């Protein structure tokens, strides 16, 4: 095999791994969109907020320390204790559930029956709000997140591939773990939606709000549940991305990476999010490697996913697995 082929294969594998991470974020979008028709732009910021909260709790930071210090002139920063990882994750999840309840109670309950664009703008407003809260609460400096996920090159794969093609593939352990996590998460979510009572209620709401109401399903409860689930997915995504590149503002921009994944896969399909994520992850990495970097001056990853999704949608407007769009007068 030629060198380019081998490199391309490595890029392909890394693209698959990146795609899994995109899919992880996209999942949160799909959950909320399916159940409430809200296109939740704040999903990325929720991941950031979850990661910030997790780090803050683990380090024993005082919430709103900066604000308190500025208003009453004290100098407090830390409680002086460290919280074990598992407990911190549980506490963060409690915060995310509280957040889900607050969002539903104060915002989206009042916006029932509004046009989708209004709901979308409300989630952007919520994204601003949450980003500000995260910064004021935990500070805006870059933080390291370490919950004990393995990191660094996987030596087994390195040696194995070296034995076959005389070139060791670089695969990050973290990416492998992320793949496993994503797979478990998807199976769990699908099982939840298919086989539990709550999951069935959730699908009913997704299908038809009014019909679901009329058979006695509480919309508010379902929405709080769905936002909590999205909060959980955001937490998982936040942990994985935060471990990979540090907890910082740019974490919230992964939402923008997840959008083309959604378009490609269809807004309403969980398998679509996975397949879309993989296609986009592989596509953009390969495009950058084969065409972008040598001919176009690099950094094509910024737009390639969108262009791919755009061109794809022209031929199939509902995405890969989306429900067929039928227009009637």
């Amino acid at each position, binding site marked *: 095999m030629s060198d380019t082929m081998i490199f391309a294969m490595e890029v392909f594998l890394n693209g698959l791994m990146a795609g899994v991470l995109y899919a992880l974020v996209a999942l949160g979008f799909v959950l909320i969109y399916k159940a409430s028709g809200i296109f939740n732009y704040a999903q990325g910021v929720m991941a950031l907020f979850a990661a910030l909260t997790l780090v803050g709790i683990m380090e024993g930071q005082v919430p709103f320390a900066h604000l308190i210090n500025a208003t009453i002139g004290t100098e407090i920063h830390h409680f002086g204790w460290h919280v074990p990882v598992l407990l911190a994750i549980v506490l963060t999840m409690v915060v995310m559930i509280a957040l889900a309840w607050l969002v539903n109670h104060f915002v989206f309950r009042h916006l029932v029956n509004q046009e989708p*664009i209004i709901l979308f703008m409300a989630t*952007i407003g919520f994204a601003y709000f949450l980003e*500000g809260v995260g910064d*004021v609460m935990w500070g805006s400096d870059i933080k390291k997140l370490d919950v004990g996920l393995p990191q660094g090159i996987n030596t087994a794969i390195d040696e194995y591939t070296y034995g076959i093609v005389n070139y060791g593939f670089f695969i990050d352990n973290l990416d492998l773990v992320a793949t496993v996590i994503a797979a478990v998460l998807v199976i769990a979510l699908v099982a939840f939606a298919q086989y539990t009572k709550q999951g069935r209620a959730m699908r009913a709401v997704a299908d038809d709000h009014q019909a679901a109401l009329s058979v006695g399903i509480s919309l508010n409860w379902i929405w709080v549940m769905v936002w909590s689930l999205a909060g959980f997915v955001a937490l998982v995504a936040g942990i994985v991305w935060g471990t990979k590149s540090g907890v910082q503002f740019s974490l919230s921009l992964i939402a923008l990476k997840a959008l083309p994944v959604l378009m490609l896969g269809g*807004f309403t399909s969980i398998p679509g999010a996975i397949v879309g994520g993989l296609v986009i992850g592989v596509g953009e990495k390969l495009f950058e490697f084969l065409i972008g970097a040598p001919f176009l001056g690099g950094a094509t990853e910024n737009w390639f996913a969108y262009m791919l999704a755009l061109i794809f*949608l022209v*031929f199939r407007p*509902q995405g890969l697995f989306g429900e067929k769009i039928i*227009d009637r007068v």
Partner: protein
Amino acid sequence: MFYREAGDFKTSYAEDNQTFPIKFDRYRYYFVLLVAFGIVPFVVNDYWLNAVLLPFLIYAIAAIGLNLLVGYCGQVSLGTGGFMAVGAYSCYKLMTSFPDVSILIHVVLAGAITAAIGMLFGLPSLRIKGFYLAVATLAAQFFLVWLFNRVPWFYNYSASGQISAPERTVFGVPVTGAETSPWAVYLVCLVFLTISAIIARNLTRGMAGRKWMAIRDMDIAAEIIGVDPLRAKLSAFAVSSFFIGISGALFFAVYLGAVEVGESFGITKSFLVLFMVIIGGLGSIFGSFAGAAFLVLLPVLLKNLLVGSLGWPTDLAAHLELIIIGALIIVFLVAEPHGLAQLWRMAKEKLRLWPFPH
């Protein structure tokens, strides 16, 4: 009592077809024009110009443009930042390539170029609808910003990758570059805004606007009664991008002077202009003005309050500003999803009777 539609009789078709058929609206319009052209240029100073007036005038043009597309034609676009960048960069290329031609012509040409690009990115709207389209327009946003970042021809191979506006004059008075005077800059932007608003208002009252609204309300039904969706949608994209291009050109040449594309025309700009349109009121020219004024004034007020009066550190104030703006946007959408324009409509209802009970 103060706002009356009744008793205002028209005796000719010209009168019946004028832009503001109701007397009160017309006088209000003349009054605003009088203040804007006759009084403000004499009292404007540098701080007010740069902090409030210029951003307001320029964003209002962009908001009008986007409102035509989103509010009247129903095609949600998140590519505004990218289209503003097209306006800015084409204005820059024109200014540096043809230094003898007036800047006013360059700005209009920049608008025309943006209109062409806008039509190109509007083409998928024939197949893609709703949210899929909104996300698809992000392709324009990211691709255009990347293009202006990576192709040195667009920024004339300057080492910093920035573009900066050379000095140009209108009737001998400098309006770009370092030696500008506040009133001249203000007047140039005001003239562009006034003309844009008049064009937009009359387009939406006419055949084109009615076709757009038919498409917005239900495109299949519109197609069946004989509206050509291709022409309606593409013309909406073209006109909208034309205004957005003009605002981008003014934003670069007159307001900022020097621009780095990722910073000035990033995705946050797209959201900002969309917020202006939504908070102002979809499908209302007045709403575009109100939304632009609201979102330009709000950060200035908050900054003065938090940093100026309370003396808090600037980074904390910036974060609080995010919280407050986010919360206000949500409160606004919950309280009045039809925007400031709806408040104005309700105020007119009240004024019609006030101070009598009925």
